[in-house]
């Protein structure tokens, strides 16, 4: 269709919308936002007559590339270090995608603007595309990459591992709670507009550098749908801003969504890009550099700040604090170190770092080696089973962290850990901002106003609780992270596939039992908890004990 005829066609399909005359449609999702009926234009004039053939064409490029990759033996030059982390990433991402599809109906009755509903329906089916195209990519890896373990059990792993809970926020946060908080602010304004930049633009470049050009093919194709979704969010945001009464809620939701996305997405994608790569060219961008470019400059400076004049209160302090976490407090390094500490509970293989990696980290993050170098040398030393236990049980000057009740990433920047007694339980939080999310934002009142539609943090949010007192061999069997010989573990702290070099359940059997930090914390007296907190925050960086004076 020509441009002009698309515009005309789009004009015509506006006639499709109708208001009920006889019966009010069912209202299934609440919001505390208020909207006056407004005729905000659907900014991306999309008509299905051109949309379907366009998507089909994009598909045929993706599937053509897939065939080419297999015929061209791509996997002979794929870095295992990289592809192993895809076992984690691709276990997570199909759910956020499909959840975005499922989120669209939350907006139908809450945003009284039928012109936008058309765009939301198209986003719905785009997201079905993203979810299934990613499941398909994973299937292709499973079939063609040397080690299918962890891909073959992907969605079970995702559902029962603690890593899954970190990732699931970037999914369940789209589909529950206040409809606008979830499907508009958290999903489109923050997750899609800010953080998919690093997901879909930065990550593929790194994949390509590691010999994998299929991930870029799939993810760039996915990203090409994203501008539509960003426009959906923008139109809704402008409508929300038009009503003064929403400004306080917008401020709340931007703070929550920004901080949660930073905690969750930077943890995962930061680790993949910094620790999942073999590309150590000094002039390749670090995650911090990418973040500064894509998130700080592109999103914060160019997208958010201009909205200030419409009354949007922007969480400048949290944005600067996120940067502070990444640049000064080693957030990504702390997370990668934790993933590798806890390799026994995961479902992929984690390659040790080498001198070449050390050199790159020191160049990109001056001071890295003095903080993390010794631990990674220990990780390397302890990677092949040789009479010792997995690193988490060995004395390597690393204190096992507590989990953050809100973002469910552990409280890794030790000095920032805060605690609160909430709903009859002592909880730990990685940062004051995460404590605020649980204790202030996700509550039925906010700054004295009723917020009856706001969601709740629910579920058994500390993974270790479930296995408190268990032997590790039983934990890993219970989760199903065992290979088809019935004893070799899926996860390994190295890439060596020689069965004699791989860890088995027998190695775990002799380890001390799993202890839940939160269960233990709640068994303490108030004084003991105080002392515990003082000791915890004195630790770090890199989980190290404080140097005694």
């Amino acid at each position, binding site marked *: 269709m020509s441009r002009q005829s698309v515009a005309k066609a789009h004009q015509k399909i506006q006639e499709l919308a109708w208001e009920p005359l006889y019966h009010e449609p069912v209202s299934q999702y609440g919001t505390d936002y208020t909207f006056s009926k407004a005729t905000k234009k659907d900014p991306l004039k999309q008509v299905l007559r051109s949309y379907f053939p366009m998507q*089909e064409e994009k*598909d045929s490029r993706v599937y053509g590339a897939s065939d080419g990759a297999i015929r061209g033996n791509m996997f002979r030059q794929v*870095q295992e270090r990289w592809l192993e982390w895809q076992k984690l990433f691709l276990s997570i991402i199909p759910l956020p995608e499909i959840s975005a599809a499922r989120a669209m109906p939350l907006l139908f009755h809450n945003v009284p603007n039928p012109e936008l509903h058309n765009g939301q329906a198209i986003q719905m089916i785009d997201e079905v595309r993203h979810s299934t195209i990613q499941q398909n990519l994973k299937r292709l890896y499973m079939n063609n990459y040397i080690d*299918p373990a962890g891909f073959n059990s992907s969605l079970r792993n995702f559902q029962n591992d603690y890593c899954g809970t970190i990732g699931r926020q970037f999914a369940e946060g789209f589909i529950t*709670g206040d409809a606008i908080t979830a499907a508009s602010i958290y999903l489109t304004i923050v997750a899609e507009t800010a953080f998919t930049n690093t997901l879909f633009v930065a990550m593929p470049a790194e994949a390509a550098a590691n010999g994998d050009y299929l991930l870029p093919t799939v993810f760039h194709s996915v990203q090409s749908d994203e501008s539509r979704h960003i426009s959906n969010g923008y139109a809704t945001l402008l409508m929300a801003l038009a009503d003064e009464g929403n400004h306080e809620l917008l401020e709340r939701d931007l703070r929550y969504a920004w901080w949660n996305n930073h905690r969750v997405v930077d943890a995962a994608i930061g680790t993949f890009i910094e620790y999942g790569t073999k590309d150590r060219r000094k002039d*390749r961008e670090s995650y911090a550099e990418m973040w500064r470019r894509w998130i700080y400059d592109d999103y914060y400076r160019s997208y958010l700040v201009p909205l200030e004049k419409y009354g949007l209160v922007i969480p400048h302090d949290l944005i600067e604090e996120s940067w502070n976490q990444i640049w000064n407090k080693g957030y990504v390094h702390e997370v990668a170190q934790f993933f590798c500490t806890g390799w026994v509970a995961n479902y992929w293989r984690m390659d040790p770092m080498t001198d070449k990696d050390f050199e790159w980290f020191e160049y990109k993050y001056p001071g890295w080696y003095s903080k993390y170098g010794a631990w990674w040398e220990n990780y390397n030393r302890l990677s092949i089973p040789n009479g010792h236990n997995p690193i988490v049980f060995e004395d390597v000057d690393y204190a096992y962290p507590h989990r953050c009740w809100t973002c469910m990433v552990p409280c890794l920047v030790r000095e920032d850990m805060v605690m609160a007694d909430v709903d009859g339980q002592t909880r730990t939080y990685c940062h004051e901002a995460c404590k605020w999310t649980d204790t202030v934002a996700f509550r039925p009142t906010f700054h004295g106003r009723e917020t009856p539609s706001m969601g709740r943090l629910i*579920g058994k949010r500390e993974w270790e*609780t*479930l296995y408190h007192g268990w032997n590790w061999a039983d934990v890993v069997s219970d989760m199903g992270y065992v290979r088809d*010989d019935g004893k070799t573990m899926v996860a390994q702290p190295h890439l060596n596939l020689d069965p004699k070099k791989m860890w088995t359940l027998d190695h775990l059997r002799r380890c001390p039992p799993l202890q839940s930090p939160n269960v233990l914390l709640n068994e303490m007296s108030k004084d003991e908890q105080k002392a515990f907190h003082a000791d915890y925050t004195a630790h770090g960086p890199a989980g190290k004990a404080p140097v005694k004076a």
Partner: protein
Amino acid sequence: MTTAEQTTERSLPKPQFTDAEAGAKVFPDSTARNYNYFVPQKRRQTHYEDVTVEVQPDPRHYLAQGWIYGFSDGRGGYPLDWTALKAWGSDRPEPERFPGSGGKGYDWPAHGWHEFRDPNEEWELTLYKYNANVVRQLAANVDAARQTKAFEQWNPNWVSFVESHVGAWMHVEHGLGLYVFSNANRRGPTNMHNTAVAVNGMHRIRTAQDLALYNLTLSEEIEGFDGSAHLEAWNSDPAWQGVRRVAEQLTCVDDWAEAVFAVNVVFEPLIGELFRSHLVQQASPRNGDYVTPTVVGAGEHDYATRDLRYTIAMFEPLVNDKEFADHNKTTMDQWLSVWVPRCLEAARAMQPLWSQPDAKPPRFEDGLDRCKSRFTGILSDLGLETPKELAQ
């Protein structure tokens, strides 16, 4: 001086030979190349199953820590009681979690909802192929008609029939596509349910747009064609107000399965096919119109070959459920007793449309009888009895 001396090497990642290809080594799991967390419906797992099954988690089997974000009432995820229907295992409580409980739930699938598979095997690749083909074919048909001046043969009465009444149908498609089917994609208990209804939603939204764009073409091609007459028909023509009432009622249903059932089992055969197959498709050729049937036929085809097909696969197992067959049958019978009279009333209100074209279609009563027998056929595929209300 050679140019090589002046060129500094570009900084590029260097590919390395890693031999990380399937089969390069033998070790535990080296040949375990199937998703191992679900049981396929047939002997081998299908591509559709691989990209669909288990993407939406369930606390009853693998989701160890439960849903982590909830609505204000503390419920998260996809509650099974968002429909009155039950699949075997539905009443078992979610596994309890406490210190040391472990993370295992019931053995997969934990309950019968997970056994549903869309017989159309829709995922992104199939849905874009199918719909792209439809819109391409339609555009070509309409284009050919324009070039051969096919619209010139329409008599004035038929022109006004198409502008008002074929036009009015676009609103049905649009409303149901968005507010019944797309809406239901947040509410089903598994990814298979929710993807199937999302695809159904896109069929209907596409059909609505197909009709709107056809209407636009006609306003450009036929002198005096009133491109806004469909609005008046939908908003105030008494022949349409019954259909509109039911369409609106369908958007009021809270129970996602009832909404899907009411549209695809009751509304479609009794109203959709009555209007499309027994009026438009029959009257068009008699009035010199060979184009409208291709446009309307696309939506007809969506329903008859795809949407109805998954609907039967979705509901029939529930009628024969090993634990809740009676409960489900009673529930669906109740739905029938509500929706059959509503749809019949709306169908009868459309009767005046049959006398509008110059060349008349077969009688309304004959059309309705055929719709009723089509409907009872669908019910028997589902294992349900014909409700007494059909005799009305």
